[in-house]
């Protein structure tokens, strides 16, 4: 994996930089070629024009009466061009040179190209020539191409150097930029590597520029935060499950062993069987509660949410548990303002179970004589359900912990219960977007679940 990462050619940013540099160069070369073509065509045209002008100038000196003028003009021109840039030829109809630097033979009328070996110029210098008949002599004016070639060479050279320079800058710049991006990608990859090896506290370093990579990294970090919180929770829960299920499992095993012994000696085992059944039911209901909480937290139930009035739900719970409380030596009173509707968006079954758990929690952990109160209030934007008692309450330091799975106060370790009732309350509240607050009522505990209120559904 590290080999792949270090291989520069496989890195996406470097590939992008390289591709971009290549495309840029291609465009530069193409446009350069077009410019070069246009320029050399224009140079050739200008050369032809100068040749033609010089030819016309010389030819204009010719007159029927004075043939010497033409000869003199050719001689003068030939004299001016010492470096043989411009050469001239004037021959009579038989091909004998009358004046000029050379004898043009075999050149067609009009423009042509030829290479001449003349004293004073490099061998094979190329010339562009214009030939024509003036009177009864042949005049040829030829200009060397060396000047045009020089110009073209300068342009080509500068173009070549430009290409080289740009390639260098593009590749080096691309490599620098690419390696910077690559370093950040490597950072992400190595963080994920750490995470996959179990180091859940590893986080992607942010450079704080707020760019897209930083934004994605921040999102990945947030996901990792949530993941590690979940894993921590799971670890704690697994440890608690192991502990809390081991106790009833051990008891179950002891009961069954005793039953097996009794059976061997022909004794009646009905007590053991009843006990074993009770233990297995306890284990089963703990698992059931764990599964339910997990499923509620998974949120699938939300698809079935409807707008409902919590008043009747609270009244039903109050009605069901009032007699239970009375038989238990406690009292439960319910106060729901009549003719007032408290609409929230939720699931009736889950709300029933949540309230039942809260009331049962109060019933189980309060001594006889405790008064429990159930009520609904609202402040316009929220519907508040209160479950209050005047029992022993929960110490301030423990209030957050009681919603954890399988958490039980030391004082309640000996009373029956799974330690899951309030976790389920929390899971249902979370699913409904409701906040739970615990308050000390001196004495007693006040639990308030605050649901976002919704407008009454249109009938």
């Amino acid at each position, binding site marked *: 994996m590290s080999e792949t990462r270090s291989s520069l050619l496989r890195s996406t940013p470097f590939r992008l930089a390289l591709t971009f540099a290549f495309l840029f160069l291609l465009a530069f070369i193409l446009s350069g070629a077009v410019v070069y073509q246009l320029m050399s065509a224009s140079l050739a045209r200008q050369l032809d024009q100068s040749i033609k002008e010089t030819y016309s100038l010389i030819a204009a000196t010719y007159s029927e009466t004075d043939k010497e003028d033409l000869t003199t003009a050719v001689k003068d021109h030939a004299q001016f061009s010492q470096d043989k840039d411009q050469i001239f030829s004037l021959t009579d109809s038989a091909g004998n040179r009358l004046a000029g630097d050379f004898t043009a033979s075999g050149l067609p009328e009009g423009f042509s190209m030829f290479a001449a070996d003349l004293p004073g110029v490099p061998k094979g210098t190329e010339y562009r020539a214009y030939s024509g008949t003036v009177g009864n002599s042949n005049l040829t004016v030829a200009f060397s191409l060396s000047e045009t070639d020089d110009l073209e060479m300068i342009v080509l050279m500068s173009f070549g150097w430009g290409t080289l320079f740009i390639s260098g800058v593009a590749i080096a710049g691309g490599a620098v930029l690419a390696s910077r991006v690559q370093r950040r990608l490597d950072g992400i990859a190595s963080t994920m590597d750490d995470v996959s090896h179990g180091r859940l506290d590893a986080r992607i370093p942010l450079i704080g520029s707020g760019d897209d990579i930083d934004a994605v990294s921040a999102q990945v970090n947030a996901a990792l935060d949530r993941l590690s919180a979940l894993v921590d929770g799971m670890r704690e829960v697994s440890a608690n499950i192991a502990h809390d299920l081991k106790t009833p499992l051990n008891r179950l095993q002891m009961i069954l062993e005793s039953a097996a012994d009794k059976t061997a000696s022909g004794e009646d085992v009905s007590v053991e069987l009843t006990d074993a059944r009770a233990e297995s039911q306890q284990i089963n209901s703990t698992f*059931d509660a764990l599964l339910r909480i997990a499923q509620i937290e998974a949120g699938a139930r939300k698809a079935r949410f409807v707008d409902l009035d919590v008043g009747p739900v609270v009244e039903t719970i109050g009605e069901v548990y009032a007699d239970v409380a009375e038989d238990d030596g406690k009292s439960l009173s319910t106060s729901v303002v009549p003719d007032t509707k408290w609409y929230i968006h939720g699931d009736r079954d889950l709300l029933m179970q949540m309230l*039942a758990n809260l009331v049962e929690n109060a019933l189980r952990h309060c001594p006889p004589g405790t008064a429990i109160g159930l009520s609904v209030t609202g402040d316009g934007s929220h519907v508040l359900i209160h479950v209050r008692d005047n029992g022993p309450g929960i110490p301030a330091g423990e209030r957050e912990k009681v919603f954890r799975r399988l958490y039980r106060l030391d004082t309640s370790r000996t009373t029956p219960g799974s330690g899951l009732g309030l976790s389920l309350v929390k899971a249902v509240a979370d699913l409904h977007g409701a906040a739970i607050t615990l308050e000390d009522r001196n004495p007693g505990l006040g639990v308030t679940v605050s649901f976002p209120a919704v407008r009454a559904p249109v009938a």
Partner: protein
Amino acid sequence: MRLLLVEDDPRTADYIVRGLTEAGHVCDLLRDGHDGLFAATRNAYDVIVADRMVPGLDGLSMIKAVRAAGIHTPAIFLTSIGGVDDRVEGLEAGGDDYLVKPFAFSELLARINALGRRPAAQEQKTALRVADLEMDLIQRRVTRQGQLIDLQPREFSLLEVLMRGEGRVITRTMLLERVWDFHFDPKTSVVETHISRLRAKVDRPFDVPLIHTVRNTGYSLHVPG
């Protein structure tokens, strides 16, 4: 009754079939949803008991197909998922009841009996009568030996469920579902408390008790003997 059981776990199936046979029912066991669908459409059963997770065709799809074929045999789903949505999904698929594994056999038997004897045509009864106990469903009045018994609305519903199932066992869970709409297991003695209140009004002032406790299972209302 003739029952169809679709269950692929051999031990659970064996346990259920043995229990149902002992209870006097005839039980056809199939281990595959396709076979179950085939049997349910060919034979007349009184109740279908279907596990939700069986090979071939899953239980939900099987009952949906049975319903689509126009067969209205009551069906109970067995589920080991323990899900909060299972009940609703089961009812939507055309099931009449559901039971989460692991369950007590007495619970399953009580539910099969309750479904199987449901009158085919939902005739609207206006009054229920068990011995000298009478319930007027229209005026919502209960009398025993001609004396008016004053009941709270929930006590009335509780007595109604028991009277409709006269002679049969109604389990705690069935009462929680039918009377209070509780689809979870409360950790306090909700059912016991309310049954004891009902007994105080319906049985205690009279010589013959009608409400009987069935140990570890539930309650039954009938004339003793």
